[in-house]
């Protein structure tokens, strides 16, 4: 399978001259399976250009998997071009909630005063699904979703196709359960999703100093991202969910810090970058 990063910024879109190398769009990952099926992980602002391209490519059946409904993971959905194409069929998957259905929760962002068009007027066929509690299959790929440590119901995903696997945990604070290196793998939030994954895209929003001031905000430091990758046995770590206040230069300093911490690992951690294409 192949994945393309359409957005890897956290919290808020951050366009401008200081973010051109790693991008300013918020979370969105396209996973293209070998049979042509497209899975879209999260609907941050990166999903807008992806939608335009999918229509150009003639892709009409699309699965969108939402880790959670914080705005930076949802705000692009309203501008996703296939929604406004009556030939398109979208299946939207997301976390369970004890009170409201996924549709009810998403519709809030499709309603005045936040948005002028009601979701009922969208021409595409749209289905809403709570993720199953056990792995499930979409067109030959096996997907797993688990609740992970982040405020509100939040999922991490694992996609397996053939012998390849990608784990996606863009918003995750595993250190909230205690120091990662001191715990067995089964006591680390999200670890089964990332276990021995070929590629792990993981939250690394903060430097160590920033994290100390933001414990409980739901995000990881660079050091915790490396520790989580090491604990879970993931082979390649991509640092994801870049803080809006971090310029490209700051991100590269954080990457250097991650590589120092990860000394001895087979593959050095790298920054996720908008436009990055990875074959797994």
């Amino acid at each position, binding site marked *: 399978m192949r994945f393309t990063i359409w957005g890897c910024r956290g919290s808020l879109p951050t366009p401008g001259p200081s973010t051109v190398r790693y991008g300013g769009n918020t979370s969105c990952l396209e996973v293209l399976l070998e049979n042509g099926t497209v899975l879209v992980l999260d609907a941050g602002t990166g999903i807008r250009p992806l939608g335009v391209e999918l229509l150009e490519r003639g892709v009409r059946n699309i699965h969108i998997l939402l880790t959670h409904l914080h705005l930076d993971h949802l705000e692009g959905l309203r501008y996703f071009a296939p929604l406004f194409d009556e030939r398109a069929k979208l299946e939207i998957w997301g976390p*369970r909630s004890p009170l409201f259905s996924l549709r009810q929760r998403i519709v809030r962002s499709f309603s005045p005063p936040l948005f002028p068009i009601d979701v009922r007027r969208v021409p595409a066929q749209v289905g809403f699904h709570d993720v199953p509690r056990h792995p499930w299959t979409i067109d030959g790929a096996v997907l*797993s979703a*688990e*609740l992970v*440590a982040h405020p509100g119901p939040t999922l991490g995903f*694992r996609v397996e196709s053939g012998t390849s696997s990608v784990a996606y945990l863009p918003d995750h604070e595993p250190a909230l359960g205690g120091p990662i290196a001191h715990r067995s793998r*089964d006591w680390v*939030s999200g670890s*089964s999703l990332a276990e021995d994954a070929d590629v792990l895209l993981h939250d690394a929003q903060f430097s160590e100093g920033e994290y100390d001031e933001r414990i409980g905000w739901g995000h990881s430091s660079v050091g915790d991202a490396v520790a989580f990758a090491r604990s879970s046995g993931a082979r390649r770590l991509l640092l994801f969910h870049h803080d809006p206040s971090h310029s490209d230069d700051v991100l590269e300093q954080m990457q250097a810090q991650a590589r120092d911490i990860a000394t001895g690992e087979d593959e050095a951690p790298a920054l996720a970058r908008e436009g990055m294409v990875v074959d797994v």
Partner: protein
Amino acid sequence: METPRHKHLVLILAREFASNLATPTLIVDDEGRLVFFNEAAEEIVERTFAETGELPLDEWVTPFAPRSLESEPLPFERLPSGIALYERRPAHERFRITSVDGVERDVAVTAFPLFAHADEFVGIVIIFWRE
């Protein structure tokens, strides 16, 4: 292809919560397996969690020989932990146990179920109160 599962997030957070409490606290999963007890509970279990590791239901309940304050044996189902596990509701009770060192102790115990969702029971928390 089934992904091996880590502990449910609710249990992970419950463990971290318990590990920061000075009150003896046990964490049990949905099958009755003792998956964690904190440092304060070592006084009751008489061992550290590092020594015992996880214990199946019969191995952690039986040694306590729980009985009423009138010394009548109490089946697990009538204990707060049994009520929380099998009936999935909170319970509180005073009763008598024998610690691993043979010392009899009167204890007050609160147990309550953990639901990740209304229909997703993931375990219980058991708290021992000193009276």
